[in-house]
């Protein structure tokens, strides 16, 4: 048998039909659904008299629109349009009999945090959702990617997707990370290297010692932003950490089925001599804490750098950089650490998990948010929130001056009231620094949770290593 990549293996296990030209029907094991990209798909089913083919494999949760304030049980906290969208999901979940976590359920949260938390996401699966950050689930060695609403309808009706296979790309992070450098820095550094279109046409497998060393939470952060590099999906081969994370989750297999699953899961890795269409290698020890300076996730630099000059780029990027600097209100040559910050946002499907909150809290402990700044933490799910409260992390945030919110997508895309105002500058643990993403004319700098915490304390973009104790710095 010819050697295969992990992607090849998962793909081969899910092809239900293949045409002569390679166009395949890929069977979908888990379909995650949220309120923004699904109403038109359910409407399409109703109009054509179709049903959901596999309701037991379909899981819905409202996350994009939901308010994150403590009083959100009151419907008046939502705009009418948002309320209609959330109510439409309530009704669709009920009418079509799919699994559902409503707003008032403690398990509610961002769909990409809820899926793994509840054990819906398992190694070797195909997972889709009408959301580009579905790539997150690749951390489990699941083939997971975003789809449009027409494809949501297609999966609801047929439990398959019409697909052509992507190419294989290997991204290897060798060696060990230095203290203060996190999964977020890895994934941003990779995009800085490849560009936002570098992964177009590929499925990425992340590997190497620095990836193996990451927790499952860290691996989810890395895969989450595969889409920002243009890839269809990001994958990490499952290992003991993966199995330990999955074991005992509500929807993970039990007993004999667990044993049977493990037997297959242990074969889910890329063979030694598998073919790669593209290989990118970064040295873990050379990755620094990074920030973005522009309006594309590829606009990445180490925190020690200065704002670049547009002329230092090539082709269409020169004009794009000029536009970005104008939008961001920055001047070439300015030190990144001199950029003053108004707001800090910690949360999102990129960095809203318990480990992210722990990392920020470790920096914030005993310190205060700088006067005049706005700082908020939005846990990725109700269960993350509860765990953080139990661990005393919530108290650290509150004592530092952070708002301690309810779970949702929040200011990552600002569909709910959590938005930046015009010109407001934010250090954000989210995934996109696009124009207007966090609010009209809002300015976003993407950072890790630890770097966000550091900026909250000092009021400007800051190298988190300067705030670490000597013990932490050598850890």
């Amino acid at each position, binding site marked *: 048998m010819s050697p295969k990549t992990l992607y090849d293996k998962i793909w081969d296990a899910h092809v239900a039909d293949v045409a002569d030209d390679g166009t395949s029907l890929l069977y979908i094991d888990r379909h995650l659904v949220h309120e*923004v990209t699904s109403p038109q798909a359910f409407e399409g089913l109703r109009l054509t008299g179709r049903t959901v083919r596999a309701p037991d494999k379909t899981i819905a949760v409202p996350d994009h629109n939901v308010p994150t304030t403590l009083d959100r049980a009151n419907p008046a906290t939502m705009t009418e349009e948002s309320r209609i969208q959330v109510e439409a999901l309530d009704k669709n979940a009920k009418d079509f009999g799919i699994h559902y976590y409503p707003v008032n359920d403690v398990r509610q949260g961002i769909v990409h945090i809820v899926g793994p938390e509840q054990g819906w996401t398992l190694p070797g699966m195909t997972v889709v959702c009408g959301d580009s950050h579905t790539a997150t689930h690749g951390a489990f060695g699941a083939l997971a990617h975003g789809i449009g609403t*027409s*494809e949501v309808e*297609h999966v609801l009706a047929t439990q*398959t997707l019409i697909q052509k296979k992507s190419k294989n790309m290997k991204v290897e992070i060798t060696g060990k990370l230095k203290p203060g450098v996190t999964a977020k820095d890895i994934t941003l550094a990779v995009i800085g290297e490849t560009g936002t279109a570098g992964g177009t046409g590929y499925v990425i497998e992340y590997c190497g010692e620095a990836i193996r060393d990451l927790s499952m939470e860290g691996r989810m952060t890395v895969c989450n932003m595969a889409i920002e590099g243009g890839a269809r999906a990001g994958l990490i081969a499952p290992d003991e950490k993966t199995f330990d994370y999955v074991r005992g989750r509500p929807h993970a297999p039990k007993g004999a089925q667990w044993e049977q699953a493990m037997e297959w899961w242990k074969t889910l890795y890329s063979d030694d001599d598998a073919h790669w269409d593209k290989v990118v290698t970064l040295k873990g020890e050379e990755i620094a804490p990074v920030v973005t300076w522009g309006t594309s996730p590829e606009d990445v630099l180490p925190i020690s750098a200065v704002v670049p000059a547009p002329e230092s780029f090539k082709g269409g990027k020169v*004009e794009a950089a000029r536009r970005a600097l104008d939008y961001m209100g920055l001047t070439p040559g300015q030190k990144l650490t001199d950029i003053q910050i108004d707001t800090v946002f910690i949360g999102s499907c990129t960095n809203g998990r318990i480990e992210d909150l722990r990392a920020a809290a470790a920096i914030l402990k005993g310190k205060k948010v700088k006067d005049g700044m706005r700082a908020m933490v939005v846990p990725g799910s109700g269960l993350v929130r509860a765990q953080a409260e139990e661990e005393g992390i919530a108290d650290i945030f509150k004592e530092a001056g952070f708002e301690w919110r309810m779970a949702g997508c929040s200011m990552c895309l600002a569909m709910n009231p959590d938005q930046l105002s015009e010109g407001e500058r934010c250090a954000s643990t989210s995934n996109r620094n696009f124009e*207007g993403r966090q609010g009209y004319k809002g300015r976003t700098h993407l950072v890790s949770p630890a770097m966000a915490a550091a900026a909250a304390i000092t009021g400007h973009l800051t190298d988190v290593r300067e705030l670490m104790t000597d013990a932490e710095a050598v850890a």
Partner: protein
Amino acid sequence: MDKFETFTGVAAPMPLVNIDTDMIIPKEFLKTIKRTGLGVHAFDEMRYDRQGNEIPDFVLNQPAYRNASVLVAGDNFGCGSSREHAPWALADFGIKVVVSTSFADIFFNNCFKNGMLPIVLPQEQVDILMKDAEKGENARQTVDLEAQTITTSDGEVIPFEVDAFRKHCLLNGLDDIGLTMEKVSSIEAFEKQSAAARPWV
């Protein structure tokens, strides 16, 4: 879905690279539960000021391009969010074809589901079409999907590649779900085999 027919229309130049779907349709317009009516909000933040007045400099506000049906765009068009509201907004505006050196994967797929044709060409050819588009309302380009050509206003014919299955679906206005439903026996067979091999799924 309407059949994709050969047409001649005004091409608008948008040379900016990395035009993301947040730019094409900002988040506040994602709260709709319909597919229609988004054309007026296409490129909303680039197109209007906060009072709702048109920004005259923006290409689609210029008299020459108000009726554009082709966009000639910079690299990596449609990156970011998976929102199908982006092609819905473009189609509702009247755009049928977008030309670029590369497209983001999800946006590219979404176009075909809505009767739109994204065309990938090498930089040189995109440059020719961009230059042609910059001529204004005389820049009427002809797209012939059957022949797989796009012709500039000067008559220069540029061939392009397109996936055969997708071409077939566009030309015939075929609905994907209907096509897949014809293969339901393959899906049933897969489910049966999969239930035995991976019962935990």
